[in-house]
């Protein structure tokens, strides 16, 4: 995992509407400009005002892909935050709060209490957001960040709103900084200067950017948490990049518009969460039957039904496996982190164009809404674009067969509007020339031929994608198996376990369909003890692995409380299973929001 010498986490808690996002964003930018890595996770509820929001931000000079196990600094914007989270803060940590309105709680575990007399430090009692800026100043001092750095960030942030706004914020932050310098104890370690400046993005940004880089020209959506970030990115960039973005009446309309635009020839994309995905599924089958390439993103949240709209889960695997009626081929991929999400988009669009089929990308709230640092040089904004057997020029030859039964099963597909390639795409079963088989012409031999033609396309697809790789010592005592967004969390747990003398390696699965069953079995047949880690109750991946390979894991670590795993949850789960205490470990969620 390459953990560095500095590993610091701070949290900001308050209620919706108290302006947590702004200090979070300002601090994030300070961190990445310094070349430090960042991983943030925001725990929140589905309300616009009130409730409890808890933003965790972890900072390191090594690469980090999760929000970590501990907190060093807590900024309380309301009493509720103090009451809920004081117990998490032990000796050596700091709790920063507005001492005018917030009292220390009753669960003192040894943190330094850093109360800020906000009213006395500012003459601006009218602005209830002022405590955030005073707090930011104090945090900058405590962390060992020069005030000039904060001043620069505040200037960048507020300059659009005029010099007066900049001056006021800088003045208030300075008051917080100076007060902290006089009264509080600096942390022992201050953030080192990392390498070159990094960038910051969310998983939803990465998915949208990946789509744009892959040549998406049509994006449709109906707002749904936690996928709405993809829509917002697309909407903000649409005009500049020549992407048509439509917010549609429902996800049924979204999916069907995407299929229609793709049939006419554009690369087309949509994103939603499980509920919206349920409405899209009939159109996914339509894309399969008409052999139209298009991509559907499902950003998973805790279900079923409305479920917990603002919480994470890996609960939709079987939903996407079974999406739409009938027996047909689809691509399903679960990216491992934000950069992987970005890269996956170009890869999956090339695959759908080559194989003329629908593809489903399953992300989840944890990576989609989390914000992470990324090395900008690793973001390839000009990936290879391969549209497969696409006819783009008119022709005077007769006898075009849209669904020609070729050796590979792949039939050249024409852009709509070309002379010489007039054809119908039908959701009814059809012949090579699109004539319907399903009404008066039903013909079992042709039906069999067309089913086999479509299926044959996938005979070679596995060779186009990378097989999963076992990471860590080959002869480890324990093999942890995960899928999708848990990659960075499991990897860190593996590092900690090995450091503590428990020999563990790690196999993370990204491609669900097609599935590298043989390659995976070649790895698993040599393992000693296998534990599957997943963010759901029933072990959806464990069941899928067994259905595809016959392999049943020895143990399981599962979490289904809406919150993501932290590395120590997995460490504890492995230790409990190595010690023979259980073969299914359900970690306790310490931070409740």
């Amino acid at each position, binding site marked *: 995992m390459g953990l560095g010498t500095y590993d610091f986490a701070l949290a900001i808690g308050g209620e919706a509407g108290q302006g947590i996002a702004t200090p979070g964003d300002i601090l994030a*930018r300070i961190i990445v*400009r310094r070349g430090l890595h960042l991983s943030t996770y925001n725990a929140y509820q589905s309300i616009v005002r009130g409730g409890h929001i808890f933003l965790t931000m972890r900072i390191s000079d090594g690469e980090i892909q999760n929000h970590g196990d501990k907190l060093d600094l807590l900024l309380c914007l309301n009493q509720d935050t103090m009451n809920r989270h004081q117990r998490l803060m032990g000796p050596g940590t700091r709790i920063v709060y507005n001492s005018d309105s917030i009292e220390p709680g009753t669960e003192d575990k040894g943190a330094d209490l850093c109360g800020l007399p906000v009213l006395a430090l500012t003459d601006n009692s009218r602005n209830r957001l002022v405590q955030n800026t005073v707090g930011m100043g104090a945090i900058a001092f405590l962390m060992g960040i020069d005030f000039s750095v904060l001043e620069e960030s505040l200037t960048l942030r507020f300059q659009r709103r005029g010099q007066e706004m900049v001056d006021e914020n800088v003045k208030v932050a300075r008051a917080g900084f100076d007060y902290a310098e006089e009264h509080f104890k600096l942390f022992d370690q201050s953030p080192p200067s990392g390498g070159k*400046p990094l*960038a910051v993005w969310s998983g939803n*940004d990465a998915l949208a*950017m990946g789509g*744009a*880089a892959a*040549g998406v*020209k*049509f994006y*449709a959506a109906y707002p749904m948490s936690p996928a709405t970030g993809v829509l917002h990115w697309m909407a903000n960039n*649409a*005009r*500049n990049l*020549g992407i*048509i973005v*439509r917010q549609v*009446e*429902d996800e*049924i309309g979204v999916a*069907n*518009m*995407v*299929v*229609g*635009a*793709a*049939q*006419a*020839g*554009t*690369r*087309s994309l949509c994103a939603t969460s499980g509920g919206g995905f349920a409405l899209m599924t*009939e*159109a996914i089958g*339509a894309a399969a039957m*008409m052999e139209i390439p298009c991509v559907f993103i499902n950003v998973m949240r805790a279900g079923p039904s409305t479920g917990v709209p603002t919480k994470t889960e890996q609960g939709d695997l079987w939903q996407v496996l079974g999406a739409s009626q009938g027996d047909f081929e689809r691509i399903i991929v679960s990216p491992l982190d934000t950069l992987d999400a970005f890269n996956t988009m170009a890869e999956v669009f090339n695959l759908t164009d080559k194989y003329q089929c629908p593809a489903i990308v399953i992300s989840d709230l944890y990576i989609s809404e989390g914000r992470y640092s*990324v090395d*900008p040089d690793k973001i390839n*904004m*000009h990936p290879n*674009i391969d*549209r497969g057997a696409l006819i*783009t020029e008119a022709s005077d030859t007769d006898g075009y067969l849209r669904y020609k039964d070729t050796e590979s099963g792949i039939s050249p597909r024409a852009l*709509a*509007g070309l*002379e*010489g*390639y*007039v*054809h*119908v*795409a*039908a*959701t009814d079963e059809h012949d090579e*020339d*699109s004539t*319907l088989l399903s009404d*008066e012409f039903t013909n079992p031999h042709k039906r069999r031929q067309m089913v086999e033609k479509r299926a044959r396309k996938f005979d070679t697809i596995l060779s186009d994608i990378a097989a999963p790789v076992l990471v860590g010592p080959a002869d480890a005592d324990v093999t942890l198996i995960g899928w999708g967004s848990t990659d960075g969390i499991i990897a860190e747990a593996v590092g900690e376990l090995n450091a503590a003398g428990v020999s563990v390696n790690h196999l993370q699965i990204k491609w669900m369909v097609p599935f590298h069953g043989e390659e995976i079995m070649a790895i698993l047949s040599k393992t000693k003890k296998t534990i599957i880690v997943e963010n759901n109750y029933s072990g959806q991946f464990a069941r899928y692995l067994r259905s595809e390979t016959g392999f049943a894991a020895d143990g399981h670590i599962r979490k289904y409380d809406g919150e993501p795993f932290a590395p120590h949850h997995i460490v504890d789960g492995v230790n409990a299973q190595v010690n023979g205490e259980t073969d299914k470990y359900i970690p306790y969620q310490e931070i409740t929001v």
Partner: protein
Amino acid sequence: MTTTEINLTPRDFKGKSNPDWCAGCGDFGVLNAIQRAVAEMGFRPHDIMTVSGIGCSSNLPGYINTYGMHTLHGRSLAMATGVKMANHEMNVLVTGGDGDGYGIGGNHFTHTARRNTDLTYIVMNNQIYGLTTGQVSPTSSIGMTTKSTPFGNVEQPINPITSAIMNGATFVARAYSGDVRQMSDIFQQGIRHKGFSIIDVFSPCVTFNLTNTHDFFKERIKKLEDDGHDTSDWKTACEKAMLFGDEIYTGVFYEGDRSSLEDVEPVLKEGGPLAYRKLGLEKDDAQKIIDRMM
């Protein structure tokens, strides 16, 4: 639409398959009128995409020689909107029935009218579900007995004309499938109209609807043009569209000149059809995106 001289006949727009409709089905007349309209307008088969949903009338794309999509039940307008966004230079016709368009597809009907997407939507309205062998439809009259309403339909039918006008469609007409000349004229006006054109066509089901027959319509139909109807007067249009008794009007009820979706979509201002554009990002655009993340 092409401006060069092309002498195609309705026969050139005959599809690969022969219609599987019942003898006497109103849909034959609609198909003939569409083929006649597009031939008379000088289109070539590859200038047009015909998109349908599911149902007897939705089989139409297989019977006409144009690009086509025979999609899902109720989803023709959504699919067609996608097609039109991807290639706004194609003439997109949407065909289907009353159950497909006003029932299961009702939400898309409402919102397509609101968006005023430049589609020509021809609904073969037979006031019954035919392919499923005769159940009540959203346009079935009160009292009508069908297999699913053996004691008579109790629900008020939808009025496609007033609904379309209220929701923002900018070309709203009604025709009768027994009058191919009038249909062809209205279809041509609808295709020429920039914006969402909806033409509701009484297209009798000779097998399952024994109430709204050819004779039923022949006795009642009056033409709006004979009354000197002003097509910019949406209030009178709605009043006349509500009549479904001794007098039933056909013709163009309403035509407005609100901008179509393609006209207000900035991405389509220049650069040709989206589907034919170069893929991938310009270097400068890509760099700006990265810079904003720093």
